[in-house]
């Protein structure tokens, strides 16, 4: 069984619901700003912005 909790997106503060069986390093997506968030702690769940490949558009 998994239960859902919520924690705030570190990028935009939107509540992100997290399953209780999340593992460390797992990636979740913020439903609002769509940031990729990494699980950096599990009890309680702490999310951090996952690093993103730089986009280089327009010189």
């Amino acid at each position, binding site marked *: 069984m998994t239960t859902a909790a919520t924690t705030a997106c570190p*990028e*935009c*503060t*939107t509540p992100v619901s997290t399953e209780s069986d999340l593992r460390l390093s797992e990636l979740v997506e*913020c439903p*609002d*700003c*769509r*940031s*990729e968030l990494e699980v950096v702690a599990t009890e309680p769940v702490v999310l951090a912005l996952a690093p*993103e490949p730089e986009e280089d558009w327009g010189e």
Partner: protein
Amino acid sequence: MIRAAVVGAAGYIGGEVLRLLLGHPKVEVAAAVSSRYPGKRVDGPHPNLRGTTDLAFCTEEQLDSYDVLFLATPHRATMKLLPRLAPKAKTVIDLSGDFRLRDAEEFARRYGAEHTRPDLLGEFTTGLPELAREQLAGADRIAAPGCMATAAILALTPLTDAGLIEPDVDVDARTGSSGSGATAGEANLHAERSGSMRLFATSGHRHEAEIAQACGVRPVMTATGVEAVRGVQTVCRTTLREGVTEADVRAAYRRRYADEPFVRVVAQRRGLYRLPEPKILLGSNFCDVGFAADGSGSRRLLAIAALDNLVKGGAGNAVQSLNVRMGWPERLGLEFPGLHPV
């Protein structure tokens, strides 16, 4: 089923009204007026309608009476048409600029001509459900806003309603070629218009007045024609009031549009389509709105919107207003979500 008539039905907005009404489960298109094509099939100038209708254009004289009348005729011509056409329908929805502004003097300044029926201006309700849903429920004179104005208004409203920004706003509109209608002038020649980035208005665009009226801001507006047939994007450069944070902004947008069927908040950190962009909205009645604060902690905020000028910026918005007016489900006949890729 109610019976609808469309005047200016051979034009781009008229054609889009036809497309939407022909697919609408509660509306019968009873008349489509064109002075150039009387007796000709509507699927001549609107080839996308082939196979969906056998309707032919009629003349204004052949009109009798209808439940709703859509005016898709040029500004300045429409204020002359309205008095003689209004008696033919219970509800009139005007898509031109003639009855959008409440102030006749502002009209004269913006449109370079005196309003011939200033007495009627007060009778009109703004045809934008996001702003005037309640008034529209009982409205029989509806004036749909301009395409670039609609985009800017929907981008700004969450901010002005919540008092988050200062009044000075720079509105930078980018538009496709269908915004100028089906008029073959040198400026719309494919070889000239193609690939252009043409600043055709550097200040004083008419839509400024609509934005000011709707949002209570002081807009200055530039408009650039870019390579596209359909599509408007407005980038509003605004200044946050002291102490307002990006989280406040995000919350204001979410709150304002939580229940809106046709406004989506798009302000993402990942992916190709992070902010509103019109290409994925072709044919759709969505207006996407988004925002971007300045990372560096300044008070600068971009408020961005995108829509299809002929749909949410015109015909779709008018049909949505009709749905509200009639008490029908607001999405009726407007379900097409847009395409990707495109």
